[in-house]
Every structure is written in structure tokens, then in C-alpha cells.
């Protein structure tokens, strides 16, 4: 097997890191790769929930859940709507449709 030189590796790395789909997929993988966020998304997929429902079902404290929810909302993986005094969270389906496409493109190359 022919060895790669340092410069060749640098070039490969640069090309990959400049690839927009790669960057986007990595960003989403880092978010959903956390088991708590993965569970929150799976939970919200079942039905929209208030923060207190998520806390109860994931057996985590409010600060930790609020932190994960903030990240998910910031990256438009979930959205919220006001129900009385509280916010109800649900899946941002359009983002997942987009992510589904990026994911499929990614693995077609394997």
C-alpha cells in the first residue's frame, strides 16, 4: 500500500473540511450524538411536550434538560409554541427532512 505524505494528508483534510455537506452533517451529528438529546428528540417524535414532561421522562434535572432543549431549538431541530404560561416543544420536521437527505447522500458513497 502506498503511503500518504504529510502534504497529501493536508490536502485531503482541507478538501473534506471545505465540503459544505460534510460540515453540516458533522454539526448535526454532534448535536444528535448526545444520548440525552437523542432521547428528547425521540420523545418529542411521539408527541409535543412541555419541559416538565421531558424532565419526568428522562429523569434528568431541569437545568440539564433546559440546556439540551436550548441547543436543539437553536439549531432548529425542535420548535416551541406558547400554551398558556408554558412553552410546548415539538419536532421541526423540515430540518429532519433536510437532514434525511444529507444523510442519504453521505452513505450512498460507501
Amino acid at each position, binding site marked *: *500500500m502506498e*503511503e*500518504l505524505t*504529510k502534504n497529501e*494528508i493536508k490536502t*485531503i*483534510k482541507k478538501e*473534506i*473540511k471545505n465540503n459544505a455537506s*460534510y460540515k453540516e452533517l*458533522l454539526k448535526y*451529528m*454532534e448535536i*444528535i*450524538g*448526545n*444520548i440525552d438529546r*437523542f*432521547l428528547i*428528540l*425521540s*420523545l418529542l*417524535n*411521539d*408527541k409535543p*411536550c412541555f419541559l416538565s*414532561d421531558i424532565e*419526568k*421522562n*428522562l*429523569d434528568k434535572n431541569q437545568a440539564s434538560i433546559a440546556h439540551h432543549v436550548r441547543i436543539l431549538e437553536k439549531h432548529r431541530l425542535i420548535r416551541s409554541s406558547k400554551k398558556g404560561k408554558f412553552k410546548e416543544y415539538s*419536532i421541526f*420536521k*423540515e430540518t*429532519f*427532512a433536510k*437532514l*434525511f437527505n444529507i*444523510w*442519504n447522500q*453521505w*452513505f450512498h*458513497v*460507501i
Partner: protein
Amino acid sequence: MPQLNVMIVEDELITAKAIAVLLKKLNYKPISIVSSGEEALSKIKNLDLDLILMDIILAGNMDGIETAKIINTNYNIPIIFITAYGDKKTLNRAKLSEPYGYIVKPITDKNDLLPTIELAMYNHQIKNELKKSNIKFEQIKQLIEPDKNLLPSQIRNFLEKRSDHLGQTTEEIKTIYEIEVSDEKINIIDWLKSFSNSERFLILEVLKSRPLKLDEIEMLICKSQSTSSHHVKRLEETGFIKGWKDGKYIYYSLNKSKILEFAHFIENWLKDLSI
């Protein structure tokens, strides 16, 4: 005293043999003598070792400290450094690999070895016990059963399994996050963690087009050998990559069937969330 299986990593054969004789006098079993870090790493997985005595200056490309770091990342075997270099700089470097002891050569008598080895084995036992109690603590934390009313079926299954695992080992408790894919059980936490790290993601991306050696992986992610080994180990454990020998090098390539299993699992999950 139980017989300990010992590996001696020492580039001077005469010194190594002399140490082996002293070890035998102490009723230890010097089952392997190697002269380089590379040789130590290639033999270690096939031996049931209790202790490694490691010289700092070795034949080959790696010194004893680098070798010790890799061993610590991958195995739970105490290492004692044996070296002629007793200077502070070497000692400070050696400390970073968290050795169990440090003996300065020449070693002429079995009593030069005995106290350090005994203390190392004792500390190793204490460290293992501490690890076990930490695991127990984590298990207890996990065993509080949550309200299950709102959970989707797959996630509900994970959580329902928790209550059946009181007092069992970590390996068993890990099964709560196991799901069946293609008749095989996989752990969803391991899969996600393995895939969602930017350095491992980069390694996988390059492996899509060609195999890589460990030093190429090091150059790619610009990290130390121990960090690179850790990532490789993690990817190997989840089955995403596999290593194979070509001459004196180990190459790593994608394990396509396993990656595709993961891809289909995530694909179904994303599809479910998008409709």
C-alpha cells in the same frame, strides 16, 4: 503470593535476562522479553499479563513512555519503569503516563525489585476496586425508574429494561440501550458516541476512500499517538472499522456492513422524525 505473569520490555538482552532471573527468585513468571515498544504492543494482546517492567530507552521508534501511554489507553495492566535515567526531566515525562513505580538501574538484587512490585500490585488492586465502586454508583443513579407515560415504544423499552438490572455489572446494565439491528444487538449510546466526535468523523470520511495506518491517522487529526489510538479503539469496538496487517504495518479500513447497519438505523429514525 500468587504468581504474576510479567513482561519485560528492555532493549539490552543481558539486562532483561538478569531481571528475569531476579523475578523468578521472587516467584514471578517473566513470560515475555521484548526489546521495542512496537513488539510489546503486538504481543500484549495474546498474553495474560499482570505486570509490565518497561525500560524508557528502547529499540524501535517508540520509547518506553510512549509505549506505556498506548498500553494504558488500551489495557488495564500496571507498568513499572526500569531505567538508567534517573533525571528529573525523564521522571516528569514518565509521570504523565501514570506509572505504578520507577526503579533506577542497575538492579543487582531481588530486593531492588520486590518493594516496588508489591506496592504497584497493591495500588493496582485499590485502583480497580475504586473503579468498581464508581461503576456501582453510576448504576444506582441510572436505576431510578422514570414515569413512562409519554415515551415512544423504542425508548420506553430501553427504560423498562432498567428496573430489571438492579445490582448487576456494567456490562449487563449496558444492555438497556441495546437494540436489535439485523439480528445483532448493538448499543445505541456506543454507536452515537463513536460517530458524533469530529475527529472520528474525519477518520471515517477519509476511510470511505482509502485505508489508513495509525501514523497517517495521527497526521490527519493532528493529535498524539495515544489520542489517535483511543479513537481507533473506539471505532473498532463499535465495529465501524477493522484493522488488518500488511507487512509490518496495521491498516484500518471501514467495516462497510456495520457502517451501513448504523446508516439504516439513523435513516429510519430521521425519516420517522421528518414525517
